[in-house]
């Protein structure tokens, strides 16, 4: 993660103004009905009174760009604005529960297009698009912890975000086949995985503490016996 200035305006994102207009229209109006296909992009171009050929300015892989746009906007604009909307809810919760709520809010962003999401994941699993997808996932985990107010700057920074990335991927995949009301099963799945991760984290931390205390106690005992160490 690179330096994020608290006062300077943010640098421009990876999408130009023209791309943003086209992709937003495609994502909100056409993808829920037609999926992540060129059809959605052409319909979006037409509805904006552009030529049908316009999506070609998205580059050689327009579908991957569309999916990347969804991941990018869900992470950078939808999630922070949802977090501020739910600020009163988030207020009194401890950090693990805030993380759960924020991850759930992000998962819900996939609701309108969930029936096409497996197809989208297949596109992003192609070797040329994997780096983008992995980077977005890592930045999402960081964003969730940042919005949850986590201020740790030791190795747990890595373990927390790594664990959350894995859990998020699993929950997203689960959600694509979940037919329950309001995706409750996905929410329960998410909660179970997060609790497991917390338990494992707790065990590792306890073992580490024990080893540390035993070692320093041993050294101090030897010093008290006169061993010059």
């Amino acid at each position: 993660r690179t330096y994020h200035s608290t006062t300077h305006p943010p640098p421009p994102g990876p999408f130009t103004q023209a791309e943003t207009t086209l992709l937003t229209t495609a994502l909100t109006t056409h993808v829920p009905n037609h999926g992540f296909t060129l059809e959605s992009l052409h319909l979006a171009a037409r509805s904006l009174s552009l030529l049908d050929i316009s999506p070609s300015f998205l580059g050689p892989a327009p579908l991957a760009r569309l999916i990347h746009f969804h991941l990018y906007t869900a992470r950078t604009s939808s999630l922070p604005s949802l977090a501020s909307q739910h600020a009163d809810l988030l207020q009194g919760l401890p950090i693990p529960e805030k993380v759960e709520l924020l991850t759930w809010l992000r998962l819900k962003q996939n609701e309108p297009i969930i029936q096409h999401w497996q197809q989208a994941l297949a596109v992003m699993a192609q070797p040329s698009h994997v780096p983008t997808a992995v980077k977005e996932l890592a930045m999402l985990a960081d964003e969730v912890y940042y919005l949850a107010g986590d201020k740790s700057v030791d190795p747990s920074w890595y373990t927390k975000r790594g664990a959350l990335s894995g859990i998020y991927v699993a929950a997203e995949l689960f959600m694509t086949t979940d037919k329950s009301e309001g995706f409750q099963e996905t929410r329960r799945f998410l909660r179970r995985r997060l609790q497991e991760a917390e338990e494992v984290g707790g065990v590792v931390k306890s073992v580490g503490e024990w080893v540390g205390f035993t070692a320093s106690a041993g050294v101090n005992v030897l010093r008290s016996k006169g061993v010059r160490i």
Partner: protein
Amino acid sequence: MASSRPLLRTARQLTTSQFRHISTTPSPPSPPPDLNTPPPPPKKKLKPLTPQQSSLLSSFLRVNQAGELAATLIYTAQTPPILAREPHLRPLMKHMYDQEADHLRVFNSLIATHRVRPTALYPLWSVLATGLGWSTAVMGKEAAMACTEAVETEIGGHYNAQIRKLLEMVTEWEREGYDVGEEFTELIKTLRRIRDEELEHLDHAVEHDAQKAEPHWLLTGVIRAGCRGAIWVSERV
């Protein structure tokens, strides 16, 4: 007056020139300025950071945090063996440790505020720093002081390079007509203060017979090379 050289105005000069303007220039039909409420601060024109600048700043903060972590662990490991032989050094060791702990706190909070990734080799640096501190302390007070001298020499040069780079960035912004916010003036001020305290530690180490360590050239050479390597790695990983 400052308004004749707008491009070189800093934020502080901007505010004071505005105050001067309000109090000395007669303003005919406009209502008298309300002296109870301060004038609104001028809107600052801040330039967005380029990706290179962002990654440079993040590598600076990452390396500084790693360095201060190593410093606190070195002092923690050095203190018991040294004090066993020379108990009169307790106040000095405590003073240096307290300053390093304060530096670590500063960088921890900067890293959290600016969402910088901490170094991935944190556990490795912890082990190496503790080992270095303990081994030099066991070799004797002079060796421990030579270790401090070597580390602080490297660190002093390293902070100087960072401050220089930040000042370059800031003058570039001023030359382009942008304002420099408090974020960066405070950062430069903090780095200067920390660099001065590190150089003070260097002076203390030399005062306490760092030069008398046997073999001085080997100890300082190895430790300085190790520091440079650790700095290089932490900037990237």
